[in-house]
C-alpha cells in the first residue's frame, strides 16, 4: 500500500530522532507489523535508487533521513551549526569507552597512560558518553558508557557495528605486512 509507505515516510521525516521499527509499529497499531517492515525497506530502497540529495539511513537503532556525504561541501556553506570537533585525546578516550564499556576512569587512564579526567568531562558535556552507575569495587567509581547520541553522530546503528579489536589487529598486521613482507604461513592466519 502506497499510503502506508507515505505515512512511514512522513513520520520518519518529522521525527527529531531516528525512529525505530518498534516505535513505528506502536505508532501504527492499525497496520500489520510485517507490512510496516516491508514498506520501510521499500522506502530505503527507493531512496537508494533515486540517488538524490538525501537518503534514508539506519542509525542509532532507528531510521533517519540524512544528506549524502557527497554534498557536504555545499551544505557547509549554509553554516548553520559548527560541527562537533574532537581533539585527538577526546577521540581516543571516546574509542576506549566505546570498545571497553562499561568502563571506569582508571581503566581508561591505564590504557592511555595519562590523566584523562578532563577529556572524560568534555565527553560527558558533549553527551557522547554518560554515567551508567557505580562499580561494586572499593571506592565505588563511576562507570561510563557511550550514548545513543554517540551512535547518531557516528552513524552507527548499534555499538556492535564497530569493528572488533581483533579485526583491528589483523588490519594493523596487514599494514605491517605491506611494509615488510612476513613469511607466507603467517598470512593464512590473518585472513
Amino acid at each position: 500500500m502506497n499510503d502506508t509507505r507515505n505515512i512511514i515516510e512522513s513520520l520518519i521525516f518529522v521525527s527529531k530522532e531516528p525512529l525505530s521499527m518498534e516505535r513505528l509499529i506502536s505508532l501504527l497499531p492499525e497496520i500489520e507489523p510485517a507490512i510496516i517492515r516491508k514498506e520501510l525497506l521499500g522506502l530505503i530502497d527507493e531512496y537508494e535508487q533515486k540517488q538524490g540529495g538525501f537518503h534514508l539511513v539506519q542509525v542509532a537503532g532507528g531510521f533517519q533521513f540524512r544528506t549524502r556525504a557527497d554534498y557536504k561541501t555545499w551544505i557547509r556553506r549554509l553554516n548553520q551549526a559548527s560541527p562537533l570537533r574532537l581533539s585527538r585525546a577526546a577521540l581516543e578516550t571516546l574509542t576506549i569507552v566505546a570498545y571497553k564499556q562499561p568502563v571506569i576512569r582508571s581503566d581508561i587512564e591505564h590504557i592511555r597512560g595519562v590523566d584523562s579526567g578532563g577529556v572524560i568531562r568534555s565527553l560527558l558535556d558533549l553527551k557522547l558518553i554518560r554515567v551508567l552507575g557505580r562499580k561494586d569495587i572499593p571506592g565505588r567509581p563511576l562507570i561510563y558508557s557511550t550514548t545513543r547520541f554517540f551512535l547518531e553522530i557516528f552513524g552507527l546503528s548499534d555499538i556492535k557495528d564497530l569493528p572488533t579489536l581483533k579485526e583491528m589487529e589483523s588490519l594493523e598486521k596487514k599494514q605491517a605486512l605491506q611494509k615488510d613482507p612476513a613469511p607466507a604461513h603467517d598470512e593464512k592466519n590473518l585472513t
Partner: protein
Amino acid sequence: MRENAYSVKIDVFEGPMDLLVYLVRKNDVDITNIPIALITEQFLAYLDLLELMNIDYASEFIYMAATLAHIKSRMLLPPVPGDEDEEDPRMEIARPLMEYLRLKAAADLLEKHDMLGRDTFKGNPFHEDDAHPEDQVISIGLFELVETFRQLSENQYHDHVVDFKTNRMTVKERIIGILSLLEKKATLSFEELLCEHPGKFMMVLTFLAILEMAKMNLIEIRQHIQNGVIKVAYV
C-alpha cells in the same frame, strides 16, 4: 615529523605511550621485539630535551622511564636455569603498547565515519505541531542531574553574595512591606506572610518583623481555636 631547514619543531606528546609509539615507529622496530636499550636511551633523551627547554612534563613520563629502565636491567640478567618458560620482560611494555596501538587504529577508523554535522546532515523538518520552542526539552541522564545541580549550586552561591552585600532587606523594610499588605487586606494569615517571600532568610526576617510590630502594638496576633490558623490583624 615535519622539519625544515630553518625551524626545528619539538613534537609534544600527550603522554608516554604516545612518545613510545613515536619511537617505535621512528626506529621501525617490531613491538614484540623492541630494542629496549635503544628505545630507553631515546626516551630519556627526549625528556632531557624537554628539561633543557624548560618544558614541564607529567609524572607519567618518569614512571614510564623507570619501567623501561627496569625492563632493561632484567634483560641483562641471565635466565633462571630451569625456568625457560619465563616471559620476555619486554612484554610488560609490549602488551599495553599493542593495546594502545589497536585503540589508536580504532580511533582512526571511527574518525573516518561520516559524522553527523560534518559529513552528513539531518533535516530540519517543519510541521505545525512544533509549537513549543520555549519548553527547551532535555533528555536526561545521571550526568545531566549532577551538572544541573552544580549549576544551581553555583547560582545559589552568587545569590548569597548579592543578598548579603547589596540586596539585604532589613526588618524595618519588611515591616513597611507588611504594613502595606495590611492596608489592602485587614487580616493576613501567618502562612501567607511567611510564604510571600520564600527562603530561610526572608522567613526569619518576616518573623522578626511580626514580633517587632506586635511589640510596637501595630498589630494583633490571633490564633483560631479550631483550625489553628494564626492571623495577623491591624490594631
